């Protein structure tokens, strides 16, 4: 989860990729947080462009079969709730509702800085702290191609690996798997629910399109 600032992709691609966290602090407000987190979860679940949600404590994400009602019962003394959205209007909508709910739980949005700051101003919020990504350093030669990183970095704890991604890409390119089915499979190892399957479907579809064009040509 500490990795969400490093989600790989161009500005254009990241316009459809926002992650959300409600995070309790073990030093300040985790005790008795259950009702507040359940309120936050209900607000998140109302959004139509919610793609996925979960938390490491739940062991699996919505894409992997997490039941929202059962999940809600696990939120006492929890770290928080996480999820991802495919458009910025959903971020605007939940921030408005969360401001009215005033739970006092820390809320973090990961996405394009300028877009998130503008939304915050629009809804009357004052962003507090930013966690900026200064990129990947060190032995960069071992990294896979950018489009693979665009998929694998969507898992906050890198449970979605390069080999699985490449295997799914090959199946999609060969027409043996749809981009949607590929995305669903890729999302299985990520328990936190910030793996954006709508974005990964678009990336897989781009591979499929290229493969089709190549076979025609």
């Amino acid at each position, binding site marked *: 989860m500490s990795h969400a600032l490093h989600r790989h992709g161009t500005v254009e691609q990241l316009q459809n990729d926002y992650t959300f966290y409600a995070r*309790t602090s073990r030093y300040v407000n985790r005790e008795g947080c259950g009702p507040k987190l359940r309120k936050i979860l209900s607000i998140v679940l109302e959004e139509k462009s919610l793609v996925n949600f979960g938390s490491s404590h739940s062991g699996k994400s919505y894409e992997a079969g997490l039941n929202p009602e059962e999940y809600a019962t696990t939120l006492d003394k929890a770290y928080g709730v996480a999820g991802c959205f495919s458009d910025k209007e959903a971020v605007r909508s939940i921030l408005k509702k969360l401001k009215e709910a005033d739970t006092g739980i820390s809320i*973090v949005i990961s996405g394009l800085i300028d877009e998130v700051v503008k939304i915050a101003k629009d809804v009357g919020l004052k962003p507090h*702290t*930013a*966690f900026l990504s200064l*990129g990947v*350093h060190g032995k960069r030669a071992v990294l896979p191609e950018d489009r693979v990183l665009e998929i694998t970095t969507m898992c906050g704890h*890198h*449970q979605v690996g390069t080999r699985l991604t490449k295997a799914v890409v090959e199946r999609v390119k060969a027409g043996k798997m749809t981009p949607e089915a590929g995305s669903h499979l890729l999302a299985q190892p990520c328990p936190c629910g910030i793996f954006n399957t709508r974005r990964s479907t678009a990336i897989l579809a781009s591979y499929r399109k290229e493969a089709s064009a190549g076979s025609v040509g």
Partner: protein
Amino acid sequence: MRIDPDKCMGCMECADFCPVDCILERDGGAYIDEDECVECGVCARAGVCPNEAIYMPEEATQWPRVIRAQYSDPGVQHPAMNQGGRGTEEMKTNDVTGRFRRGEFGMAFEFGRPGVGTRMTEIEKVLKVLVAMDVELEQNNPVFLLVDDVKAGTLKPEVLREKVLSAILEFKIRDEQLEAVVKKLQPVLAELDTVVSWGLATRFAEDGTLPVRARLQALGVPARSNAKINMGMGRPIVEA
């Protein structure tokens, strides 16, 4: 993790799920290179083994190998931190903890990310440089618990060869130290035998801007266009 050779039928369905690609084929069956395995457990949780041949051996739960799962499986809690994941609240709760204040920057090196993993030796290389500088190491962080000698910047010798999926080294600097710290660390990171995702936590200015972005650009480490942003909705809020 380990694969029971008596149960494995050699289908290799598990191999694709390994985030560090250490499940190999041998004698018609799958086996795990246990020196490279980070004990994340993804292979077993994938549920693709028809004979349930994948398991965590007892020694993976013993010190020092036990740190592999703690730093690789988000469902395993870090001892003393009382939380899973990467074990740090970093800036997610900064609006209520005041961990990073105006005039300060938080820095976080996530070793092994994305997707490579790291030996603890690589963390020690950077730690030794940091302790010779005037920085404040974050103590409420799982990596700090592995420090052997904080003045020398050494980790406990028995953990050095352990491999994990990722581990985050966190520290804090004063505003005026930024340029010197970045210039000192860039060549150190470049020589590592793994990758490091570099993060910098900063308070927004009163007018909602992030003045540090221009300084980072000038230093040759420009901030990406996306970031994590604490929206300032925690209460009671720490404004300083």
